[in-house]
């Protein structure tokens, strides 16, 4: 290969490597201003929900309930999948079965999403008001 082409390609190669380093540094800094927050470790939605479900968790363990149904009332028609899994995550190892997946569970956890007030339901028997809009019910025989 002629010396000129070899020198030229070597220079272009160095230039491209330099460009890649610069643009990588630019990419690395992109999200820092977006995600920066102070102070750190503050109360967030997840920690709040964990506190709301503390009583539910202890009651389920006291009653040794290993699985129960889950229903949302006063909520959007399509309850967010992510919200369901957040609650399931916090209540594990109790299996939380969505009513749409399996409607005939002996016990039912009902979340009153908007009013946060537990009230009687026609098809269920209220066992206990667990606070923060969560109620434990039993299916009518």
């Amino acid at each position, binding site marked *: 290969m002629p010396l000129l082409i*070899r020198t030229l390609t*070597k220079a272009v190669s*160095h230039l491209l*490597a330099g460009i890649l380093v610069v643009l*990588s540094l*630019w*990419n690395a800094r*992109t999200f*820092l201003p977006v995600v920066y927050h102070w102070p750190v470790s503050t109360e967030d939605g997840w920690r709040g929900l964990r506190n709301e479900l503390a009583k539910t968790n202890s009651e389920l363990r006291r009653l040794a309930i290993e699985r129960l149904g889950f229903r949302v009332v006063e909520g959007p028609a399509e309850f967010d999948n992510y919200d369901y899994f957040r609650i399931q995550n916090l209540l594990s190892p109790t*299996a939380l079965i969505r009513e749409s997946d399996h409607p005939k569970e002996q016990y039912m956890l009902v979340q009153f999403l908007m009013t946060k007030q537990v009230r009687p339901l026609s098809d269920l028997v209220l066992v206990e008001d667990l606070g923060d809009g969560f109620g434990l019910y039993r299916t009518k025989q």
Partner: protein
Amino acid sequence: MILSILRYALSLLLPVLAGWLFIPRVWTGAKGILRLAVGAVIGVGYSGAAYFMVLCILGNSKWSIVASEGLQFAAIVLMLLVRRPAAPVPHSSLRSRSLLVWPFLVSALLTLTTFFFVLDWEALGGFDSTAMWNMKARFIYLSASPFSQLFDFCSAHPDYPLLLPSIISRTWQYAGFDSTQGPQFVASFFTVAAAAVTVSCLRHLTTAAQTWVAGCILLGTPFLLGLGALQYADIVMACFISASVLLLCIHDTTLQRRFGLPLLAGAAASFAACTKNEGIMFFVVLVSVRIVLGLLRRTFADSGRELLSFAAGASTGLAALFFFKFLHSPPNEIVHSAALTTMLEHILNPNLHIIILKGFRDNHRFGEWTINPMPWMAAHMVVSWIREPRFGTERTWWTPALVLAGMLGGYYMVYLLSPYEPNDYIHGSFSRLLLQLWPMAVAGYAMIVAPLHDGSTESKTPAAIFQYTGEHGQQSQF
């Protein structure tokens, strides 16, 4: 707070120590950061796989930790008692320095800071970690019989292997409670390990300057650290995939045909298979690629021994996967719903092919870069090929290149044959699948642009390597 962090650190310290002690017994060339990075990944992988296997057999996390920690402790004691003399390292040029280490360090600082803030922002992790990984870990940790309950509710992907939940559950057992710090700790470990393994392995495969360029590209991929901080398993996959492929690339350059590196590569590949189902595809693709390369290179005897060593390394991970799939796992949704007539319909449907190809095209910015580095990387490779065409099958980059091609082909077929709506399926998963392959792809690019070894059989003598790196290592930095 500090005490719990120390407990989480201790849960990873033992496997890291076991891995660090194990590495010199199978690979004398690994020193410093390379030994620590590979040892940490292999140690944590083996520890998790042993825990996962005992869990599948005995069905209880308490027995799992007793058995896995007992094995680990015995291995550490054995390795401390039975010492081996250190062998000389042939790669003298690895001490060479480059000023490009400074941009790499700045990049690492920016990345770590961003990572920390994302980690703090999303303590519970993203959707997958909430709905799958951390939740399954919680069932394993808290339930007396996790398998009877794990598949009770409609969990996402119940057939996915449980290596990552096993590792998380193990950290909680060390801490004594299930806080969000456990998964955060594991996610941080694998994100740092993915970068450390890739960069430290590259120091054996490319020039110092090109190593740092590749490291900058890797750390300058916001989606990589974002998924890591959101505690997705894709970063764990990326770590194991990169480790197994790059260890085999280093094996291709070694002078003495000892088979410790394929053993480590086999272990890492099996851990990928124990992490997510696509890891099983990766395992099959990697083995196929190595067989094809063995045939092309006409190194039949060496390839046979390499495969045996690879299988020995993979045995623990594969055994755990076998027990899970045959004793507990429900059938895979795609495989279970597969019908020959539907598959034929899909294959013969041109619109479906167009949708998949468009989906592939739309994901070309999967790294969430402000400026996409891929066109520049492609240009860099073309320029280096114009300068010096290097296509012989002895080249180290053939393994990552063929694995990349094989995996992309495999993903194409999965999208084509799956019963799901293709647009949603591709847009919901393909960027993460590409990210799993990204560290390996960046390493492949670096090996093409500035190979440390010219790949010819003649050069694989100590004298030739010293001569080659002496002549070209500093001159042809890129």
